């Protein structure tokens, strides 16, 4: 008998675990591929990659129903994939194509699908938190048990909109969860400086709501904390602030030379903290999933992302006349 009990996977079913792994692997593959494709110069504009932070999107959104909402950030691909947005449509959008998820009108920073409760990535840091207050109000007025989750970075947590939204959510007792993805950097400025090293979660106390710090590399920890917060919101218990401590594998944007980071920082994170490795180790060591099941997901995700890129490149551009659609034009 082993002296140490093998790690469990909580009360997650095999099916839930496979789905969580599929979501995280899809995000990773999508972002790693974008990193390579962006370097070719074929992708217009700029992109902000979520690689490294997958456990948060997967762990939180696993608790959400299709009719629940998320408001995302400029680093939004992970939330969109976890909320069920079409991966091929997202890729086509990032390439600016007519069949993109926003018909080429939005791009990486505005990926949205209202039918799936994806209120949009957001080009404005701190733009999303007030929006989820509105969604929470909708649920309350209509008497549904929907929940709205806002994702914000550590940078966004210093915007007035974030603090105003926490207060309004508390005053109105809204079914909301505010997730802060603290990846240690607001663009290039360290959280040790910009929030004076103080946990964002501590601010929750000032707004009369629970505040929890969780390891954002650990899917199981995020899943557990988010589950409690979302259940609290859904059952009328009001908002929660969840701060996930994490790290990003790429720069603020693609092309960022990241000279503000320590030389081995990302290498160390990838080796020691990687959420996919940790997840795989835990579920295989606990004997819940075998490696082959995970490998099969890896293969199917690789195929999906390969097809997404190939099809996006071959997709038609919008026509210039499309500039004038999807908005009223009176001039």
């Amino acid at each position, binding site marked *: 008998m082993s002296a140490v009990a093998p790690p469990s996977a909580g009360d997650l079913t095999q099916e839930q675990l496979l789905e969580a792994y599929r979501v995280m692997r899809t995000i990773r593959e999508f972002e790693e591929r974008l990193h390579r494709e962006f370097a070719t110069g074929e992708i217009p504009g700029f992109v902000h990659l979520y690689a490294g932070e997958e456990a948060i999107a997967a762990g939180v959104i696993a608790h959400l129903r299709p009719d629940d909402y998320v408001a995302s950030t400029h680093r939004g691909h992970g939330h969109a994939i976890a909320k069920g947005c079409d991966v091929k449509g997202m890729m086509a959008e990032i390439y600016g194509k007519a069949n993109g998820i926003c018909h080429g*009108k939005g791009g990486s920073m505005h990926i949205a699908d209202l039918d799936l409760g994806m209120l949009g990535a957001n080009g404005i840091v701190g*733009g999303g938190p007030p929006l989820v207050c509105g969604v929470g109000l909708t649920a309350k007025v209509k008497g549904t048990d929907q929940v709205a989750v806002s994702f914000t970075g550590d940078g966004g947590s210093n915007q007035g909109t974030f603090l105003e939204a926490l207060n309004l959510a508390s005053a109105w007792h809204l079914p909301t969860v505010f997730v802060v993805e603290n990846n240690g950097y607001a663009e290039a400025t360290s959280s040790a400086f910009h929030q004076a090293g103080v946990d964002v979660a501590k601010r929750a106390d000032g707004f009369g709501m629970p505040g929890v710090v969780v390891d954002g590399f650990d899917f199981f920890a995020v899943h557990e904390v988010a589950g409690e917060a979302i259940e609290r919101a859904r059952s009328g218990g009001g908002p929660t602030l969840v701060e996930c401590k994490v790290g990003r594998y790429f720069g603020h944007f693609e092309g960022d030379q990241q000279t503000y980071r320590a030389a081995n920082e990302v290498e160390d994170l990838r080796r020691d903290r990687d959420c996919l490795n940790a997840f795989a180790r835990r579920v295989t060591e606990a004997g819940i999933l075998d490696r082959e099941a995970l490998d099969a997901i890896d293969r199917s995700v690789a195929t999906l992302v390969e097809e997404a890129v190939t099809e996006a490149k071959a997709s038609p551009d919008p026509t210039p006349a499309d500039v004038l659609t999807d908005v009223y034009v009176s001039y």
Partner: protein
Amino acid sequence: MARTITFQQAINEALAQEMARDETVVVFGEDVVGGSGAPGEDDAWGGVLGVTKGLYPQFPDRVLDTPISESALIGAAAGAAASGLRPVAELMFVDFMGVCLDQIYNQAAKFRYMFGGKAVTPMVVRTMYGAGIRAASQHSQALYPIFTHIPGLKVVVPSTPYDAKGLLIAAIRDDDPVIFLEHKVLYTLEGDVPDEPYALPLGEAEIVREGGDVTVVALGRMVHLASAAAATLAGEGIECEIVDPRTTSPLDLETILESVENTGRLVVVDEANPRCGFAADIVAQVSEQAFGDLKAAPRMVTPPHTPVPFSPVLEDAYVPTPDAIAAVIRETAGSPTPA
């Protein structure tokens, strides 16, 4: 059946009737109930000037006070609109747009377009504008040109109780975000208003007064000052045609152009500051599209390009007066100034 009520009552009635008709209509803002959580009477204020008074007792679950957090409350309106409500958020004074503009112009105004047409944002921001009550620089501005500049927004500037009710109902039923600007001096203005609900189309100008000599385009409170000037000028033999666009977005340029085609002369009266403003926009469009019809240079009557001053003497000098409007119209008509 029409009866005489005030501009303020017309707005209140539009809100009450739409809330009764449609359970997704909600009203929130700072002190729109006024007194939430306080020991005194419910609905103590009903808005800082009482415009929403009486709504809370009728719809206690759908009329909400907010913290003084304009970004949060305007953003909440955008999120609520995107998820199935028809919120009417009150931004107490339009001057406060500076603290929440991102939620209006980067969020609400752009959802439909940047999400590829798959979002609707049926929200209204009701807001008070204008000079005339000695409220000084930060509570007196006429900032509708800033909203008019933003694609995706609709902008309403009503001048009468009848228009206020019909246009507000249309704004609430519209699927795009609408900024609805109420001139604080007009709240006590009385007029005939039908008691049943009705919607007036957004983007349709009203010819307030017919005349063949000079086209005068005016908005909001300026319609009344222009009308006073026109009455004076009629006694001098100058007939003004006053066109009230009622909405700056969409803009009924057709009606303005048709009038200029008849008169050949244009004066735009605008309470907003002159640079890159509403008057400048109308003059530019008429000059570009109807240059051949013009018999005289188009003119603008606006305040000076200064902040709104406080002292009564200064504020009265700031706002265009009927005399100042009449003087410019006379010059445009080529008539001598009466002795």
